[in-house]
């Protein structure tokens, strides 16, 4: 080559990568000949230009040719790979099986994550839609709410004319619905205004979205609801009644919307139908904040939300009094973020999944795939030692390293293709169960969209490279002479240390998962069994009908008390731990400007304290509410007492304080009980028998084991008294356990992955042990000849793995501690992380390892030394 000129370096770089040495030698000679001719004739520059041009236009045909030959060689490689799979059935099975598990997990998690991230994206303008949330300062911190006051939508519409649309919806669930003589309980009703269908997209089957809801009697049903209410008849123009008051006409039917929506819906109705008589709603009043009220805006295309946000302070100043402006603030939340933001999850209409969960999931999925790939690599290399002679022979015959590399990549290709096909099928089969298990009931399938195809291809290529690259390099590197002399053991090539590193890595991950499983299960056990400060067993809650008739409730109560199997009945605004909450505030008397504290008001009757077994520390329980009672007497909990600045319950009795707008007096103090899941601290609670119009529930304590008879009795009594309303009951204990369903899910997932990681890790171990025993065949033989016992040899083989496990544990423990500590911080009441949790996990890993190791090494230890030594 002429000199070290850059152009020649470039030529070499480009052409040599795609040609063998022999061809390149002559081709470069040819090129150089012409180059030198041109150089003498036309000068160096012209010659170099020609050369560069020549190289570049030569590349495409050479590349195409290359591909052509690779494909024809692929056929041969696939044939050899197939023969190898058949020859080593056990290895192939472990290889393909391990990788399939990892891939299946990865695919399922991918679908899960994709589903969780796909919420609300079915609206064509989803990127331009924002929900208005309100953040307001309270003494207990910032309270974040996704509900807004009724007139906000109109005000925004007037003050921000640049917005494409503003829509106000009101959501209600569990509403009584009547068609002809039949009654239904209808969930997920969205009362919407005329702009609604300008913002959101729903596919109309009957009717059209134009001018919909202008008429206060308009209603739109989903296909399922239409079917439920009207059967096969055409629902258009049919009427139904809500809550026995509002009459609606079916003006349209839409296709059932996808489930991945933050606005689940079974029926739309015009919001203009809502009146003060129905649910006490005044659409023009700023005074009410109803949890079902939501406001959405649609931004024009190519507009930045910041331009709207900038005008907010001015908007606030113009429309609200200064104390509100100071205390609260509106926030625009992108529609697609609603599902993955748990900050506003408390009054969310559909479940929310935090971004952290999604990230944890993705990491777990990738880790499983990584473990499976590492496992594959380990097994391939263990196998490769056996194939050293094949490589030697190929090299002697004339195969070059590139060809061998390609051959082994081709074999990996066959293995991964098998695993891939298996796992695609498996993932698709398991998906319905997985969706159930993961708690999101997603209906995704791998064959849903072409994007998934791209993802699959991507994963396939990555896995192929990940699993094939390293073993292929190792294999193609073998020196034929050493291969024939049985000199290849792996140690020299530095394979062993790296393999050890990979195994340690696998152990680290399994160990982290085991520790997490132990801690999470411990915490879950704790939250479920912790004394909540009230009695939750055998209590059935019954939702009272929406009628303001306390006397009728009392009749029901007395009727229930007649049953000897019912020990107590109380009427109240909700159980001690319930999502029925009346949130208000109190402050100390006398000074003005005294700090205001949040408090949960529990409207109760005289039976409440007894029914739930609340412990009265001082004062008296409630007597039956009489007509003449005018003093607002409260039984408060310890937390509230402390906020009042009192430490002794006895002294608290009789204390006066300001409660909402009235003056209240402490009648008694109860011991603190949990008011919400153990994730949150105990709140200030005030019980009172003055707020009987807020009764929402009857709580029934059952004595016998035979619940069914009692519940039947409750139902028949209900039907006598409230024939127009449906009987809804729940077990309190069930409700409380359901509070932890997210954590329960998390636990389920960790559990599964811990098992999978261990399983895959064990498969990897089997590979590694067989590798070590092959490597040590001679050593074992010599030792046995010299008198070593089987147990001696087992110890020798196991020693290394024991050290590996212990080392991996040391790495895993701090990591696991860090993550689990973070997770536990989400609970206000939690278990402490103890040393034995780590020790138990470590011991478990060690035992599993030793069992797996001995499985293989016993074979080696019992082998006849003559067999091992006769080849020398």
């Amino acid at each position, binding site marked *: *080559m*002429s000199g070290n000129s850059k152009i020649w370096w470039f030529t070499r770089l480009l052409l040599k990568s795609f040609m063998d040495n022999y*061809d390149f*030698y*002559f*081709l*470069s*000679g*040819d*090129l*150089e*000949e*012409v180059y*030198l001719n041109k150089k003498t004739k036309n000068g160096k520059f012209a010659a170099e230009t020609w050369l560069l041009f*020549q190289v570049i*236009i*030569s*590349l*495409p*045909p*050479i590349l*195409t*040719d290359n591909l052509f030959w690779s494909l024809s060689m692929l056929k041969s490689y696939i044939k050899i790979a197939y023969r190898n799979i058949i020859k080593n059935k056990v290895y192939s099975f472990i290889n393909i099986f391990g990788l399939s598990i990892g891939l299946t997990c990865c695919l399922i998690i991918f679908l899960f994550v994709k589903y969780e991230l796909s919420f609300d994206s079915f609206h064509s303008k989803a990127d331009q839609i924002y929900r208005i949330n309100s953040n307001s300062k309270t003494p207990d911190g910032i309270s974040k709410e996704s509900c807004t006051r009724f007139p906000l939508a109109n005000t925004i519409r007037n003050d921000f004319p640049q917005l494409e649309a503003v829509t106000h919806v009101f959501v209600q669930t569990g509403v009584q619905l009547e068609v002809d003589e039949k009654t239904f309980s209808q969930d997920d009703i969205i009362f919407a205004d005329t702009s609604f269908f300008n913002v959101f997209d729903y596919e109309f089957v009957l009717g059209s979205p134009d001018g919909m809801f202008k008429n206060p009697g308009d209603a739109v049903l989903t296909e399922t609801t239409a079917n439920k209410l009207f059967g096969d008849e055409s629902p258009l123009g049919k009427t139904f009644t809500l809550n026995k008051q509002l009459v609606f006409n079916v003006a349209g039917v839409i296709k059932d919307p996808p489930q991945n929506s933050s606005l689940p819906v079974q029926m739309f109705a015009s919001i203009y139908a809502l009146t003060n008589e129905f649910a006490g709603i005044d659409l023009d009043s700023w005074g009410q904040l109803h949890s079902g009220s939501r406001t959405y805006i649609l931004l024009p295309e190519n507009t930045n939300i910041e331009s709207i946000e900038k005008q907010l302070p001015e908007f606030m100043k113009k429309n609200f009094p200064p104390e509100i402006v100071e205390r609260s603030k509106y926030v625009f939340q992108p529609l697609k973020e609603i599902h993955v933001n748990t900050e506003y999850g408390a009054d969310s209409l559909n479940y929310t999944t935090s971004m952290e969960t999604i990230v944890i999931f993705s990491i777990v999925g990738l880790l499983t795939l990584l473990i499976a790939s590492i496992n594959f690599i380990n097994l391939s290399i263990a196998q490769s030692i056996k194939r050293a002679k094949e490589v030697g022979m190929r090299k002697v015959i004339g195969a070059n390293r590139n060809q061998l590399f390609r051959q082994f990549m081709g074999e990996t290709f066959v293995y991964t293709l098998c695993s891939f096909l298996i796992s695609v099928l498996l993932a698709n089969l398991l998906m319905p169960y997985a969706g159930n298990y993961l708690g999101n009931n997603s209906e995704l399938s791998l064959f849903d969209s072409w994007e998934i195809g791209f993802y699959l291809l991507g994963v396939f290529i990555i896995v192929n490279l990940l699993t094939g690259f390293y073993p292929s390099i190792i294999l193609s590197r073998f020196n034929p002479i050493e291969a024939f002399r049985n000199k290849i053991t792996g140690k020299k090539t530095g394979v062993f240390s790296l393999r050890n590193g990979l195994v340690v890595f696998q152990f680290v991950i399994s160990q982290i998962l085991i520790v997490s499983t132990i801690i999470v299960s411990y915490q879950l056990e704790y939250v479920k069994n912790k004394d909540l400060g009230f009695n939750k067993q055998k209590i059935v809650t019954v939702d009272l009908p929406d009628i303001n008739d306390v006397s009728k409730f009392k009749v029901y109560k007395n009727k229930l008390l007649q049953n000897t199997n019912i020990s107590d009945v109380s009427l109240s605004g909700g159980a001690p731990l319930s999502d029925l909450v009346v949130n208000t505030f109190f402050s100390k008397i006398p000074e003005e400007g005294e700090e205001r504290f949040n408090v949960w008001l529990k409207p109760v009757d005289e039976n409440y304290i007894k029914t739930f077994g609340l412990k009265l520390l001082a004062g008296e329980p409630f007597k039956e509410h009489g007509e003449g009672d005018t003093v607002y007497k409260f039984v408060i909990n310890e937390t509230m007492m402390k906020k009042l600045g009192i430490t002794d319950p006895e002294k608290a009795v009789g204390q006066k304080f300001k409660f909402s707008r009235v003056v209240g007096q402490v009648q008694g103090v109860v011991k603190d009980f949990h008011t919400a899941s153990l994730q949150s601290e105990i709140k200030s609670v005030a019980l009172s028998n003055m707020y009987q119009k807020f009764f929402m529930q009857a709580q029934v304590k059952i004595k016998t084991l035979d619940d069914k008879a009692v519940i039947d009795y409750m139902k028949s009594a209900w039907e006598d008294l409230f024939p127009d309303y449906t009987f809804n009951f729940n077990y309190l204990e069930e409700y409380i356990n359901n509070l932890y369903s997210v954590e329960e899910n998390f636990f389920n997932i960790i559990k599964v992955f811990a098992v999978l990681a261990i399983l895959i890790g064990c498969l990897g171990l089997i590979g590694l042990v067989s590798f070590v025993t092959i490597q040590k065949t001679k050593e074992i033989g010599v030792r046995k000849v010299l008198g070593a016992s089987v147990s001696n040899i087992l110890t020798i083989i196991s020693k290394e793995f024991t050290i590996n496990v212990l080392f991996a544990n040391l790495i895993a423990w701090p990591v696991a501690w860090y993550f689990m500590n973070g997770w536990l911080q989400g609970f206000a009441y939690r278990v402490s992380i103890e040393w034995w949790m780590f020790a138990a996990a470590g011991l478990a890993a060690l035992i599993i390892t030793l069992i797996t190791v001995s499985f293989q090494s016993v074979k080696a230890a019992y082998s006849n030394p003559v067999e091992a030594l006769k080849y020398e």
Partner: protein
Amino acid sequence: MKEIGKGAKLKTLTKLEEFVLLAILNLKENAYLVTIQEYLEKQAANSLSFGTLHVLLRRLEHAELIKHYVGEATAKRGGKAIKFYEITKVGVAALKEIEKVNSAMWVNFSELN
């Protein structure tokens, strides 16, 4: 046209392949990549890149229509030897076949002039 070559991947010859074969035939002892390229450019006004020609030659050789031998190293190409090509018997047979077909197809062409 009949199948050409024993281990043949090429069932029929393209015009380009035919030209390359003829070029090798005409260049006699001096047929190698550079001269073949020049010959084709001069006689057929067909300027091929080195890469294209290289691949063509490889395929023809694989189909056993031509074979190569290595010449002496010369100073004028940075001390590298030349890879010369020559036509095999199969190659000659293939050309004969083409010639036969061509003359059959062109038989009445001269009468047009």
